[in-house]
């Protein structure tokens, strides 16, 4: 899933250059440590999906689509609808993405995105029940990554969240012993909007929204997801390096601040999409 061809020598030189720049508060593409790249959210791009969003973050491009089925609930949650987030890094996305079932990177991406949505209680699953224990709405959010240039975690999360906000799902009722489509549509029962903020740590210096080159040389990736009330709802360290303990609280501070800025962009895009 890495976008940049790994060459040990080039990586070392690039890392050295990044550290020199970071010492001056600069980054290799001209941004400051806490600057996101340009974020564009296009809502409703896939008309056949119940909801969809195309997110462009610098050169990273992902599209998410919502599909709905009526299914039996899981045995241990008979009173809840089902929500499944599944991300695939398509082979169109980079020279290093292979066709085939999701690898550990794509699975981590799906699961961390899912955790943010789930822990924040974004979709009120208890309102997605048709007949308790028998029939519930099953919401699939599939993500196709089209181009990778770093920070798939945020781009994927924004696409999933936006597609869920955009979704209009067919309404079903239980009548005469069977589940019937009413022909009406309804929005999903949304009760929170989680915003993911991902940082790279390079020699314990944190930068937000790392691009592909930065991810190629970073020590660790740190994702924190913040809910509407500024609370933390999910987090994940990735990468083979380590970080100083106090860096995590610094990252929490950054995440809470940056999430406000991103939240506005998504809310605006969803509003435009609805108008």
């Amino acid at each position: 899933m890495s976008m940049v061809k790994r060459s040990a020598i080039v990586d070392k030189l690039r890392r050295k250059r990044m550290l020199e720049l970071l010492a001056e508060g600069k980054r290799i593409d001209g941004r400051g440590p806490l600057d996101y790249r340009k974020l564009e959210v296009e809502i409703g791009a896939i008309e056949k999906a119940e909801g969809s969003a195309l997110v462009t973050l610098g050169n990273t491009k992902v599209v998410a689509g919502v599909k709905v089925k009526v299914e039996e609930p899981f045995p241990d949650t008979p009173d809840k609808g089902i929500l499944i987030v599944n991300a695939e890094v398509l082979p169109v996305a980079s020279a290093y993405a292979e066709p085939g079932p999701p690898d550990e990177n794509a699975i981590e991406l799906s699961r961390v995105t899912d955790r943010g949505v789930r822990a924040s209680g974004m979709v009120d699953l208890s309102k997605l029940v048709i007949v308790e224990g028998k029939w519930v709405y099953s919401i699939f959010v599939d993500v196709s990554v089209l181009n990778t240039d770093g920070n798939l975690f945020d781009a994927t999360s924004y696409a999933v969240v936006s597609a869920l906000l955009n979704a209009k799902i067919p309404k079903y009722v239980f009548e005469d012993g069977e589940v019937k489509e009413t022909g009406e549509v309804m929005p999903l029962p949304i009760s929170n909007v989680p915003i993911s903020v991902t940082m790279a740590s390079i020699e314990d210096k944190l930068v937000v929204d790392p691009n592909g080159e930065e991810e190629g040389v970073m020590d660790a990736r740190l994702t924190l997801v913040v809910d509407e009330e500024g609370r933390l709802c999910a987090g994940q360290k990735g990468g083979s390096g380590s970080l100083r303990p106090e860096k995590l609280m610094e990252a929490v501070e950054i995440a809470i601040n940056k999430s406000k800025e991103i939240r506005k962009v998504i809310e605006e895009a969803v509003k435009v999409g609805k108008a």
Partner: protein
Amino acid sequence: MLIDEKGIRTDGRKWNELRPIKMEVGVLKNADGSCYIEFGKNKIMVAVYGPKEVHPRHMALSDRCLLRCRYHMSPFSTTTRKNPAPSRREIEISKVLREALEPSLILEDYPRTAIDVFVEILQSDGGSRCAGITAASVALADAGINMRDLVSAVAVGKVDGKIVLDLNDVEDKEGEADMPVAIMPNLNRVTLFQFEGILTKEEFEKAYELALKSVKKIYKIQREALYEKYFEGEVKVE
């Protein structure tokens, strides 16, 4: 009734009319060549990677390039969610797409390497394989692969007893026959032909002739998309 008494189809087209087509070249930063096409409601992203090293090595061909092709549908591309694992249909279409593109490429120029063509259906409508070939040929040109000609594709078929051009989703499902055809327009050679349905010899011939003729319109749009990327601002041929 898929065609009304005035000969107008469900989406307002006449029997020999194409759906709206929009192509954009070079839309993916990482790919060596890429093309995004909207063809009716089809929304398709094509990326080309290569020529590049072959893994595993023993699959490399000593006298030419190994062309590989994957046609794949995103789970949200269809009315009912599509399982992301490749279906038998996708595997067959991947094969015929590869065989439709291969005659147009000078693969002898790149021995021991591979070219990958990835055709991702983001939204599917009737004729997605033809739209995919059309976009893939442009993406191969965008990647700078040596070519003998472009490949242009369109489907013809029979709906409500009439031969029609370029079937949409409902016509594809409820129509009586479907025949996707791909041509190298300058070399005048067929590279893809599939057929399913029931046609008399006469109907077959009429449909086939319609495909041969209409494919030239597709070719024009392909050329325009390439010009737009490479010669924007310069004087257009045509």
